[in-house]
């Protein structure tokens, strides 16, 4: 399965990050006499991110997308599989080696109110990161803090202010400045605008996009919001119950989805126009990751389910053009016309 993940997209630079058949299982507390159930948060997921590339990750709650982001940064250990960064296997790296690695891979979280220490001035919060990663000269650090604040659209004078003096959008800018302080090559952004008002979201997304291009930053961009991922990502991966359903360049995924789940997600997304009813409506809800359906895990909600879907497990199949999908049915027409 890993082999099919190699992307036929020219030119093909060696990946910055590669996950190879990564699984993560959580053992749940035992209930009464039953055996302890195992929650399969990720099941044999493979992906690559090229330097400077933005991979979008979409899926509903319980899809495993946040777990995947944390496994990629080694914040959560994989149960099996390997993680490669800059060509080296980092799955087992510990101690100083891991800390050095962390300077090159950073994360931005959803809640800008929870991710900043309220008792630390904004400048000190950024300075702390620089110190930790070995920028020792105080004058150099002061300059870097000022430049970082300006880079994210704040002013150098903001360094002496407290987090509570900033709005949610401004706090997310500070969190971004903090993540970029150590000049990472990979940024994992986990729902970075979900807690913000829509009028503020676009500003943060525009900032992330311009920084990403300016710094040639690779990004794993995680969101439940399909339109946010559409505007940010070069390629998009769709997860369901910890399995990859579809991966494709953004245009292909949004204009010609090849998996019924992707089509259902796109059809369910609200649009600010009067239109016909969605073509594909997904029934029921995502089953428990502790008790996934046999065969294709999506089959219990799939409008196109057949008997064999309960028996056979679809493999991630390469459709060409960087488009991969895991579905037994190849007779479906799910394409949406170009808008």
């Amino acid at each position, binding site marked *: 399965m890993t082999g099919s993940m190699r992307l036929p997209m020219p030119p093909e630079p060696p990946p910055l990050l590669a996950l190879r058949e990564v699984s993560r299982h959580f053992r749940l507390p035992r209930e009464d006499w039953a055996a302890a159930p195992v929650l399969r948060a990720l099941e044999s997921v493979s992906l690559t991110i090229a330097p400077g590339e933005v991979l979008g990750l979409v899926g509903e709650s319980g899809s495993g997308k946040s777990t995947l982001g944390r496994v990629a940064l080694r914040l959560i250990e994989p149960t099996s599989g390997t993680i490669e960064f800059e060509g080296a296997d980092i799955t087992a790296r510990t101690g100083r080696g891991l800390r050095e690695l962390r300077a090159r891979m950073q994360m931005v979280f959803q809640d800008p109110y929870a991710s900043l220490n309220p008792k630390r001035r904004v400048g000190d919060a950024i300075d702390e990161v620089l110190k930790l990663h070995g920028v020792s000269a105080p004058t150099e650090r002061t300059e870097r803090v000022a430049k970082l604040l300006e880079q994210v659209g704040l002013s150098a004078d903001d360094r002496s202010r407290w987090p509570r003096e900033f709005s949610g959008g401004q706090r997310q800018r500070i969190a971004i400045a903090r993540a970029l302080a150590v000049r990472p090559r990979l940024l994992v952004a986990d729902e970075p605008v979900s807690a913000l008002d829509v009028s503020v979201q676009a*500003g943060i997304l525009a900032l992330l996009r311009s920084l990403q291009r300016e710094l040639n930053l690779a990004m794993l961009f995680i969101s439940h919001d*399909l339109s946010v991922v559409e505007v940010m990502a070069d390629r998009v991966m769709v997860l369901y119950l910890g399995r990859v359903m579809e991966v494709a360049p953004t245009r292909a995924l949004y204009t010609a989805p090849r998996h019924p789940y992707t089509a259902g997600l796109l059809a369910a997304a609200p649009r600010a126009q009067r239109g016909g009813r969605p073509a594909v409506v997904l029934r029921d809800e995502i089953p428990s990751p502790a008790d996934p359906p046999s065969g294709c895990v999506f089959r219990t909600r799939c409008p196109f389910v057949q008997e064999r879907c309960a028996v056979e497990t679809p493999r991630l199949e390469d459709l060409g053009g960087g488009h991969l999908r895991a579905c037994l049915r190849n007779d479906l027409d799910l394409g949406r016309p170009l808008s």
Partner: protein
Amino acid sequence: MIAGAQDKDGSPVIAGTPYTVSPGQAGEPTGSPASTRSLLEIEALRTEFLTARGRLPAVDGVSLTLSPGETLAVVGESGSGKSVTALSILRLFNRGDRAHVHGAIRWRLADGSTLDLAQLAEPALRSIRGREIAVIFQDPGASLDPVFTVGSQIREALRKHRPGENAERTAVELLRDVGIADPERRVAAYPHQLSGGMRQRVMIAIALACRPRLLIADEPTTALDVTIQAQIMRLLADLKNQYGMALLFITHDLGLVAEIADRVAVMYAGQVVESGPVDQLLNHPLHPYTRALLECRPKRHYRDSGEDERVLLPIPGAPPRPGSIERGCRFAARCAHREARCMLDTVDLELARAPDAHVRCLRWRALA
């Protein structure tokens, strides 16, 4: 008048809190000319919260009307006052909030007479809550009691509002109405055994138990995944017709409005800045804020050349704090079209397109 009473009868709504009521002030035009037939008329609503930092006017001069069977969507960002407007109708504030409700909230009873809910004392208001007007909230987990089965919570609402019926059977029917599969079994489930989407369905069932004439839905799908949101939106639209209810739908998402609303009111900083029929408002918005809100949704256009155009049009700045703007248009500081007078002059909600499209902007004609 102060009434510290809490809802002792255990209704599924948030308990009432200390509040005061003052007579309505002469206000702005009401949203609709059909006032003789309207179900609900809110006029010059002003809701203030007493805080350590002084009086915060969360809602400041809002007038809205709702006809029987109609769906009105109130759209706004956080701090716009959209939820406080809805909660002011039944005075459903959090315990401990010190809220003052001014203005008139005229409710038409089934016999045709009207009642000003803003003038109603707590015990009388309690007979409106749940029976005439029901509410569902964003977080269904917080609204359900974890120690009782969903069936017993539905039956409780039934016994209170529809005594004499076979509560057991009606509870199962209600669960079936809200699209819960296998309702005979699920009626015995506890809230924690249900998913978020399922719990919201149960909340809707409880709200429907008393056959309300108005359902207030305050961000009912915000906590749900997008596929479940689509299911709940469709369910609300179907139930509204099946039960013949009016719907007051509160949301931050203009995208949801298209699917469900007849009319829309857009709120900003405690005021309605634009209102009108949904198609007009979405396709030909008049207020710069409504336009900016529609445009700031991220978009990507795919060109035939293979190049993509990514569109990100943020609204600069952030919404003002309640009460912080004393004169002029409250959106002016963030508006791309402002003139000097926008910061100074009083801006009223005016009729823009008959019969009921209103806008609060000095420049709407020039910008149209």
